[in-house]
């Protein structure tokens, strides 16, 4: 009997769970470091082409999406703050808002992509094949990186949805909320990645 109690206690290692999560976030950063590094290096190699291609991206959508994701990050942080105060209902609302904002972000992204695809500018498209060499690379990286980021947004929404169920079921509560905290950490990371993608692709070339 005593032994089981000890086992449960050892499994509730908050600091360990969070350390593990942060290490995982580090690997996610590494994943995006690759394409960003490629972006900078190709920018050095083809400055004019990158400038031209960057101009054609819709800054307004990029700007709006940045604001949306930042706001969703706020609500994610607030969901953790409210579970710590024991306000389950408020927590659920904040998670719901976060997921919704993630969804709006994706809809915007979809519109932006389909706009480009309608003009044939996508890897394999007609206009893409006609592009000067550097511009093709820009769009290649644009689709790859924002696509990878989009997948992470979807993953984050799923993770948040699961933690919302756990919260509703009382498994995540005032005393034991590390799962929600880790889910929020993941969401913030997705936000941080976008914070960097936005200036790189939309602003500085």
């Amino acid at each position, binding site marked *: 009997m005593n032994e089981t109690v000890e086992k449960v206690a050892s499994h509730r290692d908050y600091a360990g769970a969070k*350390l593990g999560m*942060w290490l995982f976030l580090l690997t996610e950063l590494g994943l995006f470091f690759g394409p960003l590094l490629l972006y900078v290096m190709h920018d050095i190699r083809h400055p004019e082409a990158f400038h031209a291609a960057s101009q054609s991206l819709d800054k307004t959508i990029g700007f709006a999406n940045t*604001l949306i994701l930042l706001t969703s990050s*706020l609500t994610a942080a607030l969901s953790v*703050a409210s579970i710590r105060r024991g306000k389950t209902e408020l927590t659920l609302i904040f998670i719901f808002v976060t997921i919704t904002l993630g969804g709006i972000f994706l809809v915007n992204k979809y519109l932006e992509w389909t706009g480009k695809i309608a003009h044939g500018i996508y890897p394999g498209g007609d206009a893409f094949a006609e592009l000067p060499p550097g511009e093709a690379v820009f769009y290649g990286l644009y689709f790859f990186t924002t696509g990878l980021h989009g997948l992470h947004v979807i993953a984050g929404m799923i993770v948040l949805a699961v933690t919302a169920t756990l919260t509703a079921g009382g498994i995540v509560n005032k005393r034991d909320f590390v799962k929600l905290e880790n889910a929020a950490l993941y969401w913030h990371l997705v*936000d941080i990645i976008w914070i960097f993608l*936005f200036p790189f692709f939309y602003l500085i070339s």
Partner: protein
Amino acid sequence: MSEGGEEGRERTGYATYALVWLGLMGLTWLSVTVAGLEAGALKIAGPLVIAAIKAVFVLAFFMHLKTERGLIRWVVVIGLIAFIVSGALVFSDVAYR
């Protein structure tokens, strides 16, 4: 290293989060404005520096790095050093080819 020290940990108030969020919104607006300027170097460095500041805000407040244990800060620092140094080494190839 007290276990379950989560409840006792310092709690950030709702207002702080809201302020940080306002700051982030403002910085985003600023970066778009700076990028529109006609001032060469600032146009490129500005948005990137602002992005870095925004990331620090998210890390410090939303992700609670401010109140986090030293070890977790080390995770971030080690990652940053690794990425910056490897980036610089690749740069030493591409820029001087």
